[in-house]
Structure formats: C-alpha cells, structure tokens
C-alpha cells in the first residue's frame, strides 16, 4: 500500500505499523515524534497499523532559535 511520509509517497507492506514507517528513516525511537493524519501517535501506540493514503509526519529535533 502507499502512504505519504513527510509529503512523499512511500510503499509499505499491507498492515505495516507506525513503527515500520519510522524504521525506514531511523533506528532510533527517542528524539522522534510521529503524527498520522494530523494526530500525534504516542510511542506506546506505534504498533498501530497504517492504512493506505495515511499522511504520516516523522519529526526530529533540529537546530532552532
């Protein structure tokens, strides 16, 4: 199935979880936050399955003022 990760189309296995999406970008879990369709998904809920066309945002701390 296709989902959007940070606005780009990504092909994931059917039934892939939030954690699967995160692992595409980083091996870490600390310092990372995820929103799906505009709602924050807490780390404890990363086993939640994604659905086709979900819009996933994966964010990390970057330089800021």
């Amino acid at each position, binding site marked *: 199935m296709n989902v959007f990760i940070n606005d780009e189309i990504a092909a994931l296995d059917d039934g892939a979880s939030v954690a699967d999406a995160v692992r595409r970008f980083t091996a870490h879990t600390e310092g*990372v936050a995820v929103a799906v369709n505009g709602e924050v998904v*807490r780390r404890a809920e990363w086993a939640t399955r994604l659905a086709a066309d979900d819009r996933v945002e994966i964010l990390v701390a*970057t330089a*800021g003022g």
Partner: protein
Amino acid sequence: MSDTWRIGPLELESRVLLGTARYPTRAILFDALEASGTQLVTVALRRVRPTGDGEDLYRGLVERGYHLLPNTAGCFTVREAVTTAELAREALGTALVKLEVIADDVTLLPDPEATVRAADQLVQRGFVVLPYTNDDPVTARRLADVGCAAVMPLAAPIGTGLGIRNPHNLELIRALVDVPVIVDAGIGTASDAAIAMELGCDAVLLNTAVARADDPVEMARAMGLAVRAGRAAKRAGRAPRQLMAEASTSMSDVARFAAYESSKEMD
C-alpha cells in the same frame, strides 16, 4: 552568592538561553553553548531527513547535559502550535515549550491573540509554556494570567539585532507579572544583554547575535559575562541619577596656591 532561578521544573544558574540555529558548524555550536554557560537550549522540530542530522543534534545536546526547550517556530495558527508542542513533548520527553505563533513571515512578529489562546490550551494540557510575545505589557499580563511559566517579550524583531527598542515596556512587564521575564529576540551584542538584565529581566534568549558573530564562541562568552554583569548590577542597585555634577573626591582640605599666581606663570 547563590542566584538561581526557576522555570517550571528546572532550577537554573545560567540566565542565558541559547538557540542552536545558524552556526557555521556543529562543532562551533557546541563550543559556543559551552562558552556561554547556558543550561537551556532551544531546538525546533522538523521532518526527519535520511541523513540523520537531526538525531545527532538531539543526542549531542542530551549527552552534554543541556535541558531542551523545543519551539513552535514557523507556526501561524493555534492548532499548528498546539500540535507541534505535542509532537515536541513526545519526541523530547519535556513539557517545556517555547510557544511561537507568528502573524506573518515578513515581520515574524507574534500574533498576540493567537499566542494567548494557544498558551491557554497548552497550559490546560500540562505544558510549561514560555511564550514569545511582543513587548506589550497587556499581552504579557494576559499570558501570565492563563498560567504561562514565563513571558518572553522581544527586544526587537527576530534576527534584527537592533537591541532593546522599548526599555520602558520591558520594565513595565517586569513590574506587572509574577513569572520570569525572558528577553527573546533582537539582542545584537553584549551590552544589549546587560541592559536587559539591568532593567530587571530574569534571563535572555539569544541565537543570531551569537551564531552570526564573526567569532561565535567568543561572542557566546561575552554574552555570558554581560548577563552576569547586568544581573549583578541590578542586584547591587544603581546609584541615583542627578542633574548636576557632584564631586566624588572630597572638596575639603584642598591645598590652595592661588596666592602665588601673579609671581610665576604656570600656564
């Protein structure tokens, strides 16, 4: 003499808050943080890049013992700011948030009405809210009233380095709210930071003034010294201003030689 201050759960010795953006290199950033003496540093939350750059920053800051203050930079609406704060709390494990709701991307000035509403919601959600705000005493008081842990009025618009444009407003804000007042944005050089502290502000938040200095590490050191100097001067209590001169050296018992003036030219 101990002179710590509190922001939410944190007890801090340093009154410098330093941003982490715009430094020439990551190594210079870390050296500047150390030179400033800061304990609390701001970060942003952005989309992860495959390079892993953001993760390195997070781990580098945590390993060095800094407390993190995530911002909501770039947010224009209450909803964006609240969602960004929630994501930051989730990512960084801190309830602290530097709330920024800006009105437009030209002036980068805060939207006062949206900032107050977002602050109210974030306080309800258990955040320790440090809002970036205009140097407007009424807005600052409203932010304190909804439960913000500090108020952070600007000295001048973000990145301008124009220094404190309205010192009287900062003094008024300090007099009107019971929470720490942190001057955020517009500081240009060390004397600006010292003046902020002499006005009674509790701390200074900087970024561009350090990061874009010719020598960021030396400027970071200067800012740390200036904030300490300004704070010490405020605590010491300045001597009163007066219109007319008043000799600091005693005028009594001065030896007088006027009687010899006609006998020998000395000028």
